[in-house]
Structures are given as structure tokens and as C-alpha cells.
């Protein structure tokens, strides 16, 4: 099943990539234009190690290209979407407040559909040539939506569960086992509250577990009987809810919020959309050393996150240069370093120059990080319309 999906993916992906080489004189012109610009990078700011990485990027682009990178910390990426819309409402076609947005999934689909994005620009970025669009088809297919050169891939994410091996010696092997564990240990398990992306992705794993035919998830939700397809998901949630932390009356706001509960010993599991996050948190002293990670035997969802430029960005040249730098082997290797963020690369490492490849080969693997072999299979994201519907339905059932 997964293999068929991957094949579908690959075909779509290849057709979505325009074969066009970067144009050197045009790029030089862009670099000259970018020099001295201030790029307002609107990116979720809830994680200190990620913020630290963005600081490093700021230092680098200042030193190399004369660009000042201003990290505008968001609690939710949708705030940036709202801002661009407000500007469009007011008829501001240029000079917008946002130059670059960290984005994927439903936010991208929404902005693409409303024509709020600049581009296509990605195929003109020199470093895009190193991106592994064949081995990592999600770098051009964002939640099944073709990126069409409107967003530049930044990192690979995969969902993992965290557990405290001090209190749970043997982690569950499947979502069913996990829910059974939660029922047997009332108050010791919970998930972030949708529409937080960790919370929503947890629900998607439940949906994948209790669905008859996962292939329907690749189509827009409007084409199927949503309630019928997701019946198993809601049944499973209703069953487990009384056994959740605080009986499911309240939920942590996001992933780091759930980590804090795990560190407090209030629950025994957490979740992350980055296999290296647990190791980084142990290193930073915000999670106990006994924390380890696992994924269900059936696999876990992986996706790509991107950066995009609003249609009215004031500093498009600077934003493109930053987007290109984010895809450079050096920036990608630094990002994958488990001492820092530990986020997976979008590049085809095997195809890089030996010098660049060495940057990746030298990286250590954290104490709680699974090996690439253990992190299989990787499951595809459903069409973004599913996310919206699941969140709505969750809010209707559990938040009213």
C-alpha cells in the first residue's frame, strides 16, 4: 500500500519539477539587490533550539550577503497568513510586512489558493539543484499539493513518540497498543490540542490506523464521505478520552507544552515532529535522560517544511537569497546537527561533493534518536483538506 502511494507520489513529483537551471547573471543581480536589505522572517518561535538556529542563519546571511534577518516569532503560522490577507484587503500590493514565511500543509494550500504567494522562484535558486526531489518527493509535493516553485524546501520532518523509559520499560508497538496503555494507565497520556500541528498529526495517525483504505486520504476530503471514513478515529478517541490526562477536559497547547508535562512526570509520553528533538531536549536539560523515542511498526507520517515569500513582500531579493542559503549544504548540515535543532536535510547527501558530504557524515546521532532504518516506513501526509476537517470535527466533539 505504502509502496503504491510512493509510486504515485514520485510520478506527480517528477512532473511538478520544471527542468530549468539557475541563471548565473540573474542570480548575481539578485545578490546585489539583496545586499543591505532587512528580511522579516515570520517563523513559529515556540522552540528555543530552532530560534537559536535561526539566529545563526541571521549571522551568516549578514556576513555573506549583507542581509539583516529579523526573526518575527509566531505562536501560529496562521498569524502570518492573516497579516498578508489584511494587507491584500487594504489593497497593499507591495511593501508588505512579511518577506519570508516558514510554512507547509494547510497554510501553504490556503495561501496558494488565495494567490497570496510570490513565484514561482524556487527553481531559480542555485542550491535547489542539490535537493533530493526523487528520493524525498515531499520536497515538491506539500501534503499532496504541488509546490509549483512557490515554496523552497527547508527540512524533513518525521513524527515520533517520546516515552520515559524509567516508567515505561517497553514502548507500545502500535497506535492500538498505545491507546490500550492509556486506558490501563488513566491520566498518564495526552496529546496537544488541535489545531496545533503535533496534535493534528497525532489524530492523523489514529485516522490511518482505523481507516479501511488509506488511498482516499490523498484526495480532497470533499470527494468522500468524511464521517464514514473517519468513524473509527472518533470512536477510538471517544473511548480513550476519559482515561486521558485531566480526563480530556484540557490539553497541552503544543509539543513543547507536552514535553514539559513529560519532564514534570505528569504524563509518560510525548510527541515530536523531529526524530532528534528528544536528544536535543535531553542535552538542554529540559527532558530527563531516560527519555527515548519510538514509532509504531506501521510507520509514522513524514513531511517537508518550506519557506515561501508573500506576493507583496517588500524585500523579495533578500528573501530569495535567504531561502537559497537555507538549502545550502552548510546550512542544512548545521541544521541536522543534534547538538542544535537536529532537523533532517532535504538534500541528496550522496550526490554532494565529497567536501560537503563530509559535513553530514561527521554528524553524531543523539542518545534518544532512532537510526534511519528504525524510522521506516515513512507514511505520506493526507491532502490538506483532511487536516482542516479533522480539526473542525475534533473541536466540535471535544471542545464544545
Amino acid at each position, binding site marked *: 500500500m505504502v509502496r503504491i502511494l510512493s509510486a504515485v507520489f514520485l510520478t506527480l513529483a517528477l512532473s511538478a519539477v520544471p527542468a530549468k537551471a539557475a541563471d548565473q547573471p540573474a542570480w548575481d543581480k539578485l545578490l546585489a539587490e539583496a545586499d543591505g536589505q532587512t528580511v522579516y522572517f515570520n517563523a513559529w518561535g515556540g522552540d528555543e533550539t530552532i530560534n537559536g538556529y535561526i539566529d545563526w542563519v541571521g549571522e551568516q546571511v549578514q556576513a555573506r550577503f549583507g542581509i539583516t534577518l529579523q526573526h518575527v516569532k509566531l505562536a501560529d503560522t496562521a498569524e502570518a497568513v492573516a497579516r498578508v490577507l489584511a494587507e491584500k484587503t487594504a489593497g497593499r500590493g507591495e511593501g508588505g510586512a512579511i518577506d519570508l514565511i516558514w510554512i507547509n500543509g494547510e497554510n501553504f494550500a490556503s495561501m496558494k489558493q488565495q494567490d497570496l504567494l510570490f513565484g514561482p522562484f524556487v527553481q531559480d535558486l542555485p542550491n535547489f539543484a542539490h535537493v533530493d526531489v526523487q528520493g524525498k518527493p515531499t520536497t515538491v509535493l506539500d501534503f499532496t499539493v504541488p509546490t509549483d516553485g512557490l515554496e523552497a524546501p527547508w527540512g524533513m520532518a518525521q513524527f515520533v513518540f517520546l516515552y520515559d523509559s524509567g516508567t515505561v520499560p517497553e514502548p507500545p508497538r502500535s497506535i492500538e497498543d498505545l491507546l490500550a496503555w492509556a486506558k490501563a494507565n488513566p491520566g498518564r497520556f495526552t496529546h496537544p490540542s488541535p489545531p496545533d500541528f503535533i496534535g493534528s498529526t497525532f489524530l492523523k495517525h489514529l485516522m490511518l490506523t482505523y481507516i479501511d483504505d488509506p488511498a482516499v486520504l490523498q484526495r480532497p476530503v470533499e470527494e468522500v464521505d468524511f464521517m464514514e471514513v473517519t468513524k473509527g478515529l472518533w470512536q477510538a478517541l471517544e473511548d480513550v478520552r476519559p482515561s486521558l490526562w485531566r480526563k480530556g477536559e484540557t490539553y497541552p497547547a503544543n509539543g513543547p507544552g507536552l514535553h514539559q508535562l513529560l519532564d514534570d512526570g505528569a504524563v509518560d509520553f510525548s510527541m515530536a515532529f523531529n526524530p532528534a528533538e528528544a536528544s536535543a531536549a535531553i542535552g538542554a536539560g529540559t527532558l530527563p535522560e531516560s527519555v527515548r523515542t519510538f514509532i509504531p511498526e506501521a510507520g509514522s507520517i513524514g513531511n517537508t517544511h518550506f519557506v515561501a515569500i508573500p506576493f507583496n513582500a517588500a524585500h523579495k531579493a533578500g528573501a530569495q537569497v535567504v531561502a537559497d542559503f537555507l538549502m545550502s549544504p552548510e546550512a542544512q548540515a548545521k541544521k541536522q546537527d543534534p547538538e542544535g535543532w537536529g532537523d533532517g536535510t532535504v538534500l541528496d547527501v550522496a550526490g554532494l561533493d565529497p567536501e560537503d558530504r563530509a559535513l553530514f557524515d561527521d554528524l553524531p546521532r543523539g542518545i534518544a534518536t532512532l537510526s534511519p532504518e528504525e524510522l521506516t516506513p515513512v507514511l505520506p501526509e493526507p491532502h490538506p483538506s483532511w487536516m*482542516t476537517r479533522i480539526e473542525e470535527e475534533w473541536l466540535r466533539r*471535544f471542545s464544545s
Partner: protein
Amino acid sequence: MRHGWLRFLPGLTLLLFLGPIAAGLIGTLLPAFGYLPALGGTHLSLEPWRALLAAPGLGKAIGLSLLTGISSTAIAFVLTVLLFASGHGTRAFNRAKRAMTPLLAVPHLAMAVGLAFLLSPSGWIVRLISPWLSGWQTPPDVALVQGPFGIALILGLVVKEMPFLLLMTFAALGQIRADDQIRMARSLGHGPVQAWLKVALPQVYPQIRLPIYAVLAFSLSVVDMAMVLGPTTPPTLAPLVLRWFNDPELTMRLQAAAGAMLQLLIVLAAIACWRAAEGVIGRLSRGWLIDGRRGGDGRIARLFGWSGLAVVVSLAGGSLAGLAIWSIAGRWRFPSALPDRFSVKTWMAQAGHLADPAWTTLAVGVAATALALLLVIGCLENESRQGRMPGLGALTLIYVPLLIPQIGFLFGVQVVLVWAGLDGGWIGLVWSHLLFVLPYVFLALADPYRALDPRYARIALLLGKRPLGVLLRVKLAMLLRPVLIAAAVGFAVSVAQFLPTQFVGAGRLTTLTTEALSLAAGGNRRVVGVFAILLAALPLLGFALAAAIPAWRFRHRRGMAIGAPG
């Protein structure tokens, strides 16, 4: 020298004020009825209201807003009355009054974060009694913070609003010469509580009515505090509406605009109900007021009033201490009462991130406060030169920004500012803060200004001083203390603003408040502690300066010392 321009100042002030609010209300009202051309909404419809009424959790969210807003206002008011009734004129009470100023200064968000650290299941209170007393090795699974009935939110609002009502009542009592009348009632044999309730309260209440409505409106529509302390599934109405404004599904903006209008209606309805309740209570108590009973020694009122005060002060103190300790905590697992080790690592790591928002907070606060002082002093000076008191109407208009929920007009203000090219810039941000700073500066300064003996100015004029010289060298010099306190109040109000900064700052201008709230969602207590403690420190510093400067300036003038006659 004639100051003709001064005459236009009150009008200009009101225009600066009501203009953006009216524009903001219209800019929210139109989308609420489907008109938002950027989204293709070009004709009016009721669809946003239908979507709003069908939104999951709406009924519960409204119920929670009413529950938390009304009960916190009622508790803060009743506590205030009990404290005055049982403590008026005592030395302990005057000391308590001084403790209120710092509580008033600490921004709502800093207090909320501190309270969450204190009251959560893994918070300080539980840590202090675990495991030796409670037996808990892991945090108990109980919900107070973000719990279903909003108890933590109610507590947080009471902690912040009671000091405000207390200080407002103090100011109002000064105007009615309450001391003499209460002494009279006491000499006629009334107990302390009865004397205050029957003599002072009926006169004071009309004076503090508007502050009470402001507290009610604020509590019903608070966003930052509710996001930290309030329930989440669903939250109270205002954060729910903000969530819709931020939804990736862009057409949700229309539903959000309708929600913002609903919030406005709820606040207006609640104020109307409160007003009606005043009438009913007033009528019912008429007989009691003149029945001539003198009452006892007020032991019960004293017990409740002072225990309430003790709870408020210790919650606030514990919150601030908790913030400070988290900001310097190394590894600190449950159930340790204190961190295993302390470190300044978080402060060092955050220093670079603190600088920009701290600077913006300071700059916007100082600019908005300076403008507000200029306008308020100008209006008051005009009033004293014209020799007439403004009617109740004008006074109410000053209060408008405090009585209308922020979420009801800020979306519209944002659209207007973007249209004018002023969003994300200093002018727009200072202006949006001014809307909320000015009323408080006016509140703080109007009474002392009007109370200044006019003969000082008259003598100075007779001695040949120009009016401007009289204003600067005589009036303001004598009013240095209240002017600085008004400035400190204004600055504290500016520092605390979340929604205006969020909507108008465009993310380009961030303050400690907006940074702290986006970090609070991340749950890294150490980093949040650093931001929140700095957030609390800035306005406290303002009040410390407001106390220190006159003390130094007047160090050789006994007549200007605190408590000096005249």
C-alpha cells in the same frame, strides 16, 4: 499671551481617540456582515452570523466569559467594599494601600504566567507540600489552571483588578470628605462597617461606577490572561475569536468579525445588567439605609475582607517570586521545591532576544505616556482657564476605549492602518497604545489637578508670570508627584498591551508582552520566566522612579513631603 489653540485640544484629543475606534468598529462591522472585498465578499449577508452561531463551542465559550468576567468583577468589588468597611482609617489599611501600587503595576500577562507556575499541578504550591505531606511523587491530575470552570482565570483577574478598584475608591473617598462624615456616623454610635456602608458607599459608588464598568468590560473580553490561565476546550469568547482571526482558512475572518461584534454586544449587555442590578439593590436597601440600626464591630466583614486581601497579596507575591526563580533555574524536576542548581544560562542565552522587544516596550511606553500627559495636561489646563468643569458626557467619552472590548475594533483598526500605510510602524503602535494609556493618565491626574488651590496660579499671574510660565513653574512643579504617578500608570498600561501590539505591530514591532505570550505557548518555563520577570520589572521601575524623583527634588521642602498639609 493668548492660548487660543488650547481651546481645540479637548476636541483634538477626542478625535484622536474616537476616530480610530469608530473606524475600527466599522472595519469590523462590515466583515461581520460579509463585506470583505479581499476575500471576494462584496455584498452584505448574514452568512458570517450563521457560521458564528454554528461554531463549535460558542455557547460554552460565552458562558465561560460571563462566568469568569462577572464573578471576578463581583469578587473584586465585594472584597474592596469589605476592606474599606472594616478597615477605613486604620493604619494597617493605609499600609495595605501602599502594597496595592506594585500589584497594579505588574502587567496582566506577567501575573498570569506567575500564577500558572504557582497553581498548576506541577506548580510551586504542590511542590512545596510534595511528597512529604501530600504523598505525590508525580503531579496530581487536577485542573485549576486551564480548568473547566476558569477558576484560575477568575483568581488572576481578581488579583489584578482588586488593587485597581481599591485605589480608585481611595481617590473617590478623598472627594467626598468621607473621613468627617464617617467620624460623625461613628460618634452617633454606628459600628465601623455600618458607618461606611450607610454613609460612604452610597456617595462613593457613583464615583467608581465607571472604573467598575471598565473592570467588567476588561474581564469579559481579556485575551492574554485567558490564554494562559483560562480553559482551552473551548476558551472564553475573546481568545476563541482571536483564534478564528488567525485561522488558516481565510474565510473564517468573517465569522471572527461577527464574533468580535458578539463580544461587544455581550459587554454592553453585561454593563446594562450591572446597571440594572445597581438600581434594584439600591431600591431594596433603601429601608436598611435609614433603619437606624448601628451594627456590631464588623468582625465578620473584617475576617473576609482581610483574608481576601491576604490571599491576593500572597498569590501575587508568590507568582513574582516563582517567575524570578524559574528564570534562574537549572535542572528542576517535580517534586523538588527548589531547583537542583541555579544558573544565569537562560538570561545569557536570551540577552540578545530581550534587547529588541525591551527597547520597543520602553520606547512605545515612554512615547505614548508623554503624548498622553501632554494632551491630558492641556485639556485640564484648558478646563481650569475656561473655569468650567466638563460634564459627565465628556468624561464618559474618555472611558470609551476601556468600555469597548479591544477585539471588537482592533481588526478594523488594523485594516485602516494598513490602508494608511501605518501598520508595523511606530506611529501606529504609539497611537494604538495611546488609546488605552490616555484614559488612565486622565483618571490618575484629573483629581489632583482640579484640587490644586487656584490661588497659587492667581498670585503668580499677579506677580507678572505668563500663563505658560505659571503652568510650568508653579502648577506642574507643585503637581510633580501626581504627574509622575500618572506617568507611571500610563507607562504600566502601555507595557501591558497585548492585542494592540499584536494587531498593529505587524510582527515587526514586538514588545515583551507579545514575545512572552508566544513563548508561554511553547512551555519553556525558564525562558518565559526571563521575559515575564523583565515585563514585570519595567513598570515597577517606573513607579519606583515616580516615588523617588519627588522625594529627591523636594528633599529641602518639608511642605511638599508626603502627608504634608495642603
